[in-house]
């Protein structure tokens, strides 16, 4: 009967949905939605029948529904004078209570952080106390209360009647144009006043605005929470993403200009009842009653360049103006309105025009129906098509293309899968049917959201000319999605098409088929020596061969292929990308950056080049630049998962676990079916000691697909729990799936050592060999060297262990994994002094993790350990 979480989910979702329907519709609904799954239908039906029979049995808890994480509760007397009456609202981090001030005999509001969040209010709040304006919530004082959990700061504020603007909009829809204008004037004036006092709100949104109707019938709006959202985390604003100005996505600080952007979104929402979305249409296009004045008021707030946005004080003037004469037709008004703004303010022109562009495309090229991991020319045609479609990105539209091999790797076979698993917007489905000597191709582009066919295509191809299909499909996508034409100078002689496509398929399918791919590209080059494409493909296959075998000569061969490709067309994007890849692998980082810079010049909206740039910065140990490049990629297409995933990995290796976890959650949100995101989240959670969450994530990944990464991480969790036998079993399975990973060998060695097994030595020995092989190829990498040091320590070579660790620390002083490994190595050597020395440089996160490591029990007993972690705790609290 136990069919796992997925089954539970299907049943419970069906039951919950059915229970919301009128009784007489439930049966038909269940029949339809169970889609022929008789077992599911029977189970859901049975559950619904029982739910009806049980009524609300036990649904209400014995005593009232309580709230977790609360500092105060109703009835409590706080600080000797404030009586908590009830909770009136909660945000992500804080809770608001209605209270009665016994000293002043008045109703007030109290705001406090939830348990587990910062207990102390941010210092910038002091400024907010000074602002006085009828449309800004008056903050009286900051108080401190003693609670069992320690000291907690709280704020007392003016008690406001009414409801939040977001709730008002949700229940009443958009404001009437008269109300909207009244509120707009109030909000603009309030923000202008705060900005005049030098106060930035940082988190302006409809949820932070209270509206109430006065005795005269007019609306009063009050902005709350000025200065309350500190800058404690880069991700602080992710919860309210739609109010975030583009520069905040890039990691820049909140400013008055970003407040103006947020105000623009608020005004837009209250006037139109909908959010502006990625490309705001003029407000007047949503609500015919709104004059062009609204377009004039709101649209400039969305300028991409903060300097181009009006100041809050300007908005007061704009909101105060009498509406100008109406522009007749709505469609004309939209364009005229926007064009007028664009023309009037040159700096805004670019931003407005950019927003007129259509939204990002995330296209999945689906594998051929019935495709397996084997394949050849036919599959290669799709691989090549995906490759060419990536080049369709233009100045107008950001395009991400996920090729058929990647799709298959994620188990994506249909348009529906593409949306569900990878968050795609479009899918290209192709069937190929053999008809005598020809292949009959039929392709459709489907809009994943609407499930509608955007465009269809059929064609016939001779077996040898299937590369024409790649060209045709590229054209199809380009025309259907309004993309620029493919770039020139990358043509291939038709005769060489078949072998080229087979080669492309092989290098994209996995990273082990390089020998076959090399053969295919050699053949292609003999048939067409003048195209850069087979040379670029050859170079990529050779890079794969080098990475697999770590023999320098393949890198040199790859270099020759790149040069040959450059001699044909040095500015071909495909050639630039492979050159960048080669330069990065060879450690010529500056040259790699130059290659990708050129790709970006040619394709400014290409996220691939940005993401690769970020990876190079990561390799160069320049985390700030890496993060900034990832953020730019995210900004180009906030809904595409790949950049979040890579950003998370980057954070992870810097020991920024909270940020990493957040980035992985963002990834899962956008691509819920990708195994790797769960594995990554599990690894971070495990490093933070949040075992339950880590296990949850890892088990989720294993349910999608068994991978050595997840097995290894599960092993690590068990190791930290000191359940060594179980840990060893997981590690053994990981090693069984991938015997060439020295980390798995290391972990297995550790677990066996703990269990007193003789195999530990062999595992360390094997790990040492693997690490040394890798080190030989890239001697500069401190990360690998640190592991060599650890293996040496475990194998009894003390002097080598010390030597390698010192070198590793020198070459990568900021790499937390190196620091961590160094501490563990010194511990293994019994060099406690040096272990503490190194720990002085560790981030609080790494210290926290080391504080739980079973191998460091001895270190923890030393008073210095508590001192270090104590200090880190303070640092942590101030972040």
């Amino acid at each position, binding site marked *: 009967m136990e069919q796992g*979480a997925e089954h*539970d*989910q299907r*049943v*419970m*979702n069906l*039951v919950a949905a059915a229970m919301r329907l009128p*009784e*007489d519709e*439930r*049966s038909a609904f269940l029949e339809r939605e169970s889609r022929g799954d008789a077992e599911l239908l029977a189970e859901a*039906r049975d*559950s*619904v*029948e*029982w*739910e*009806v*029979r*049980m*009524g*609300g*049995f*036990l*649904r*209400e*808890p*014995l*005593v*009232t*529904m*309580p*709230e*977790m*994480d*609360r500092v105060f*509760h*109703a*009835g409590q007397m706080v600080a000797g004078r404030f009586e908590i009456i009830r909770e009136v609202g909660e945000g992500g981090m804080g809770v608001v209570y209605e209270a009665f001030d016994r000293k002043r005999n008045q109703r007030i509001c109290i705001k406090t952080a939830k*348990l587990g969040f910062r207990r102390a209010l941010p210092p910038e709040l002091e400024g907010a106390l000074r602002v006085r304006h009828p449309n800004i919530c008056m903050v009286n004082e900051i108080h401190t209360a003693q*609670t*069992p*959990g*320690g000291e907690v700061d709280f704020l007392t504020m003016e008690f406001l009647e009414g409801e939040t603007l977001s709730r008002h909009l949700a229940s009443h829809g958009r404001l009437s144009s008269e109300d909207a204008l009244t509120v707009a004037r109030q909000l603009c004036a309030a923000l202008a006043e705060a900005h005049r006092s030098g106060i930035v709100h940082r988190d302006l949104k409809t949820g932070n605005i209270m509206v109430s109707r006065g005795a005269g019938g007019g609306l009063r709006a009050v902005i709350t929470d000025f200065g309350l959202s500190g800058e404690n985390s880069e991700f602080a604003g992710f919860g309210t993403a739609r109010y975030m100005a583009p520069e905040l996505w890039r990691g820049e600080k909140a400013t008055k200009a970003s407040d103006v952007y947020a105000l623009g979104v608020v005004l837009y929402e209250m006037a139109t009842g909908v959010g502006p979305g990625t490309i705001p249409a003029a407000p007047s296009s949503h609500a015919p009653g709104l004059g062009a004045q609204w377009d004039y008021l709101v649209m400039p707030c969305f300028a991409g360049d903060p300097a181009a946005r009006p100041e809050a004080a300007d908005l007061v003037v704009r909101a105060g103006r009498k509406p100008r004469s109406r522009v007749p037709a709505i469609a004309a008004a939209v364009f005229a309105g926007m064009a007028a703004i664009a023309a009037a303010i040159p700096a805004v022109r670019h931003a407005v025009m950019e927003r007129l562009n259509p939204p990002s495309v995330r296209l999945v090229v689906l594998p051929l129906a019935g495709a397996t991991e084997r394949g050849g020319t036919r599959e290669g045609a799709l691989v090549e098509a995906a490759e060419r479609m990536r080049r369709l990105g233009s100045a107008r539209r950001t395009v991400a293309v996920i090729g058929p091999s990647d799709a298959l790797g994620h188990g994506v076979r249909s348009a529906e899968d593409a949306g569900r698993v990878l968050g795609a917007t479009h899918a290209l489905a192709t069937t190929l049917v053999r008809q005598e000597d020809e292949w009959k191709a039929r392709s459709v582009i489907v809009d994943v959201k609407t499930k509608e066919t955007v465009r269809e295509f059929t064609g016939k191809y001779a077996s040898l000319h299937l590369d024409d299909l790649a060209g045709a499909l590229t054209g199809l996508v380009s025309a259907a999605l309004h993309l620029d034409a493919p770039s020139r100078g990358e043509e291939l002689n038709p005769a060489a098409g078949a072998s080229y496509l087979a080669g492309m398929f092989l290098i994209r399918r996995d990273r082990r088929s390089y020998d076959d791919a090399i053969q295919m590209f050699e053949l292609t080059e003999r048939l067409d020596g003048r195209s850069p494409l087979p040379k670029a493909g050859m170079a990529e296959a050779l890079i794969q061969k080098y990475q697999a075998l770590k023999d320098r000569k393949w890198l040199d061969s790859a270099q020759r292929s790149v040069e040959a490709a450059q001699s044909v067309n040095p500015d071909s994007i495909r050639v630039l990308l492979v050159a960048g890849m080669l330069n990065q692998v060879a450690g010529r980082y500056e040259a790699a950056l130059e290659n990708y810079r050129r790709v970006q010049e040619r394709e400014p909206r290409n996220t691939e080049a940005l993401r690769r740039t970020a990876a190079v910065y990561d390799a160069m140990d320049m985390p700030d630049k890496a993060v900034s490049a990832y953020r730019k990629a995210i900004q180009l297409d906030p809904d595409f998962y790949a950049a979040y995933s890579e950003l998370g990995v980057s954070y992870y290796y810097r020991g920024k676990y909270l940020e990493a976890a957040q980035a992985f959650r963002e990834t899962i949100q956008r691509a819920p079916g990708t195994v790797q995101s769960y594995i990554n989240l599990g690894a971070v959670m495990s490093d933070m*000691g*949040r*075992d*339950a969450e880590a*296990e*949850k994530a890892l088990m*989720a990944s294993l349910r999608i697909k068994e991978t050595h990464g997840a097995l290894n991480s599960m092993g690590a969790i068990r190791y930290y*729990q000191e*359940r060594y036998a179980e840990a060893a079993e997981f590690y053994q399975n990981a090693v069984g799936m991938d015997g060439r990973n020295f980390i798995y060998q290391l972990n297995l060695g550790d677990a066996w050592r703990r269990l007193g097994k003789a195999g530990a030595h062999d595992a360390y020995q094997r790990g040492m060999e693997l690490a040394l092989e890798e080190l030989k190829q890239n001697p500069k990498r401190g990360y690998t060297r640190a592991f060599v040091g650890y293996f040496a320590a475990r194998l009894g070579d003390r002097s080598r262990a010390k030597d390698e660790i010192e070198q590793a620390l020198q070459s990568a002083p900021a790499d937390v994994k190196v620091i961590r490994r160094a501490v563990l190595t010194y511990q293994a050597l019994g060099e406690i002094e040096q272990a503490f020395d190194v720990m002085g440089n560790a981030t609080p996160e790494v210290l926290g993790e080391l504080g739980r490591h079973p191998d460091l029990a001895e270190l923890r007993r030393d008073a210095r350990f*508590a001192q270090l972690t*104590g200090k880190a705790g303070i640092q942590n609290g101030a972040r």
Partner: protein
Amino acid sequence: MDERPPEITQLLKQWRCGDAGAEARLFEVLMPDLHRIAASYFRGEREGHTLQPTALVNEGFLRLAAAKGVDWQDRGHFFVIAARIMRRCLIDHARARPEVQFLSLEGLPEGVLGQRGKLETALAIDGLLEEMGAEFPQRCSVVEMKFFLGMTDEEAADALGLSLHTLQREWYRARRWLFEKLNSDEVKPGQWNKAPNTTNAS
């Protein structure tokens, strides 16, 4: 910071690893504290004033965490144990003071509600949970968290390390099991009617 050994953390760890003795010991260690906290709330109870067991346990956790160095990571496990203790506290309290105002078990089918006081229902469920716990220990924890502690589905799933939907399915199964038992003749012959089936169209 604190020189005392973090016994609760140790016990939670042992219990998590399946050491049944640790549970009994945890009860011993935690019961007096949680009971005292609970009792102080009951004493302050007034007309219309409602209890907040989760808040109460949370506070209990905070106090213990501060006093005895309990790890924050152990919060989920702590809740599993605390829910069981709260069940005992509430039941003990109810037995001692039968006039205690439990909130309405809204939506209980009329047949059931008419026959039984809320308190009696709670006591009956408490009795049945022993039986359930023997066969489905996890399901028993679910009832303790949902019914006695009033946790949300998300909180309970988190504390038990289950997926949200699995938790919801377990909760459904537990309710159904209890409902069937309560409506069977074994509990109290003659007092229980079958739930009215008249509204059940499907």
